């Protein structure tokens, strides 16, 4: 039987792994006046899912495959490939902060020796992939969990950052479900190949805005 409940647990924003403190780049985009309405929010979320979302999903799936096989021999390569796909040092740090927090949560919730094997500051997608594997899930589940967690986290931040009807925000999430399914399939398909061939779609304005955001005095979210 498929482990569907485990997938819901990992993808749930209420998992105490620190995600609530981040807007996934939405606050910087709103501050820069690039997102001003619901249509802009939807296009922001789609662009983010197609870029940073796909990268995170592919690396989560790749880490999951390695954990399922109990072979972490190229873990350092995966970490380096992920670093190379994040030009912004701020976004590399956020990914590692969230990875550390997810590992701490999972080590307590569902202990497994794999978590300690991930080094000092693993990236969030790598930890998510390993967490999915130890919960009995596969690479596509790992990809879907991180896509959903990141997407719904940014959407939830919208309610605190702009005047929007929460039904409108969830309508966007509902429209995006097919897209996240398709992205998770692409991520899982790429995950079994060489790490160098994992997807690398960039999001230039997200990188630039993240660096501005870190330097701002007044902000609601860490990123």
């Amino acid at each position, binding site marked *: 039987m498929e482990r569907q409940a485990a997938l819901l647990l990992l993808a749930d924003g209420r998992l105490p792994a620190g995600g609530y403190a981040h807007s996934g780049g939405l606050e910087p985009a709103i501050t820069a006046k690039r997102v001003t309405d619901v249509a802009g929010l939807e296009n922001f979320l789609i662009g983010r899912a*197609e870029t940073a979302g796909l990268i995170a999903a592919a690396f989560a799936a790749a880490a999951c495959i390695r954990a399922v096989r109990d072979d972490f021999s190229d873990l350092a390569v995966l970490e380096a490939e992920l670093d190379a796909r994040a*030009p*912004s*040092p701020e976004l590399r740090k956020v990914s590692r902060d969230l990875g550390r927090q997810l590992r701490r949560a999972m080590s307590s919730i569902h202990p497994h020796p794999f978590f300690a094997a991930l080094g000092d500051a693993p990236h969030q997608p790598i930890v998510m992939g390993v967490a999915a594997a130890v919960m009995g899930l596969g690479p596509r589940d790992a990809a879907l969990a991180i896509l959903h967690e990141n997407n719904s986290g940014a959407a939830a931040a919208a309610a605190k950052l702009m005047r929007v009807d929460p039904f409108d925000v969830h309508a966007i999430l509902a429209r995006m479900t097919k897209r996240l399914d398709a992205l998770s399939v692409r991520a899982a398909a790429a995950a079994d190949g060489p790490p160098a061939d994992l*997807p690398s*779609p960039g999001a230039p304005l*997200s990188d630039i805005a993240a*660096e501005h955001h870190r330097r701002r005095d007044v902000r609601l979210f860490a990123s």
Partner: protein
Amino acid sequence: MYDSLHPKSAHRPIGAMSARAVLSSALGPNGSSHIQTLRSDGPLVLRKSNPKGSEPLTHRRPDVARVALAAGTAGPLGGDDYALDVQVGAGSTMVLQEVSAMLILPGLEGAKSQMSITVRVEAGATFVWLAEPIIAAHRCNHRHDVRVALASDARMISREETLLGRHGEPAGDLTSRLRVTRDGAPLYDQQVAFGPARDGWNGAAVLDRNRAVGSVIAVDPGWTEAPPPAHPYHETAALTPLAGPGVAIGAVATDSLSLRRLLMRGVNELGPPWAI
């Protein structure tokens, strides 16, 4: 050469071209660099050249190998398949310039065009690559793929600029990937993708409504201990240190001229010997 004479695939339109140009430099016994291989092919015309203007790293130096890439024909057009192989030999310094922007045009039946550039920069070598913009004309369908492999003590600076269509027209479909490795390990890997076949690229997370996107990558083995600090020097541009001894300067802008200014401002932030 014309592929209509030597068809590779039934799916490529008649008249589609494939071309493979080769370029290499070497260090001579007198300590100056020279061009060793200069093999043009059809639309990819390589010529020895003189400085076009100020250059980072190599300004006014007579002892470096300078080459310009010119277009022998229009395009690439849909169906065309171009390749350029560059080798910067150990200890040598090569400056690769371009004569004009590259206009990517649609071909028959929406066929895809592609250009693949591979660069090897050997031990102690320096590569300065100041490309002109790639323009993704309306209805084009193009894949641009650049791989740069650096030796651990090689230096380089490269600039890439992509324009979303000619003035006043919607952009065609384009993906452009730049992957830089150092001693075999990944340093930078980013793909820019836009066009009617994709979603979200014109949103606030990626390009917004801008019409030009570009980057400069600079790598210096001297930055292993202390890379230049991050500096978001404009609302739509930032200089960011990579996880290895390199920086990425990324920018988006409403037009080609503004993009060039933003990128070169980022280069000047690096100070000498990069600033021009």
